[in-house]
């Protein structure tokens, strides 16, 4: 009986939770760094080709993205299977490029506008016709720095 009583009096103190905030913060920071926000839903299938001579895109604010690919299953019924250009969150034609570029340009501070890069995320499977039209349109709009998005592979021997 006395044994039982003693146990009750000496209950174990709870695990110290002092370091819990640190752990949680660390996890938070980790996910903040790793997570890449996708601000637009992809409406085209984009599987970029592989290349070896890659350049990293440094400043995200100076980059605008243009996607070309075939519509995803969700949009197939409405838009068919022909390759489409996606600007922002909707399908567009090459004629919409100048306005799209101008809008992005307006959001960039004046001094940095000459280093704006267009990142072209184009599907493997697309033919050069639509890509050529896009290139012409970019040149007409004065957007000359472009980056063909690609996956890393080793150089061929």
């Amino acid at each position, binding site marked *: 009986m006395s044994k039982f009583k*003693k146990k009750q009096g*000496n209950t*174990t*103190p709870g*695990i*110290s939770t*002092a*370091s819990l905030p*640190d*752990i949680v913060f*660390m996890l938070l920071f*980790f996910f903040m*760094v*790793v997570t*890449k926000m996708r601000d637009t839903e992809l409406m085209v299938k984009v599987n*970029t*080709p592989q*290349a*070896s*001579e*890659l*350049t*990293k*895109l440094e400043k*995200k604010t100076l*980059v605008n993205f243009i996607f070309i690919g075939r519509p995803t299953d969700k949009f197939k019924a409405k838009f068919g299977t*022909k*390759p489409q250009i996606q600007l922002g969150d909707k399908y567009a034609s090459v004629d919409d490029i100048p306005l799209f570029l101008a809008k992005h340009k307006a959001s960039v501070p004046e001094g940095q506008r000459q280093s704006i*890069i267009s*990142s*072209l995320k*184009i*599907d*493997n*499977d*697309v*033919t*050069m*016709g*639509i*890509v*050529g039209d896009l*290139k*012409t349109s*970019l*040149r*007409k709009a*004065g*957007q*000359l*720095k*472009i*980056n*063909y*998005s*690609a*996956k*890393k592979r080793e*150089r*061929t021997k």
Partner: protein
Amino acid sequence: MAKKNRMANEINAGSMADIAFLLLIFFLVTTTIAEDKGVLVKLPQWSEEPPPELKLNTRNVYSVLVNAQNQLLVRGDVMDIKDLKNNAKIFIANPQKLENMAESPKNAIISIKNDRGTKYQTYLEVYNELKSAYNELWEEAAMVKFGKNLDQLSNAQQQEIRNEIPLVLSEAEPTKFGEEK
């Protein structure tokens, strides 16, 4: 007596931070962050006027044609894409000073032309091979001239090498073959 002592002891939370750090480092090492990478290209300025007629010596021009069937025609001969890089390197550097290859790397011009029906994948592969031909030539030149890797050189030295072997890649308007319907 021993039992009583164990009850009173608190779990040591001091090592918790170490465990958390370990986890953090583990995740940092194993996670590959999706990066935006790609082949950087500078397009030529748009002009309404037709380009000036340039008299180019044919020995200096390395023409690459990619047709709608994704086949390559390099200087009039069919070529496999695997051989493109080494062939281009030999053309630009011309180590044996052959009559039918570039007078000097400074004069060499690469010209690409594709059909509208050419696959984007093939096009980018061709572009990538030609770019890697130049990159390798630069690296070799850096080794010979400064005895260092290209990325260890100062900007001025890199520029010097790039001026010696300038990358001149001209792209013609695509021909209208094999357009997708």
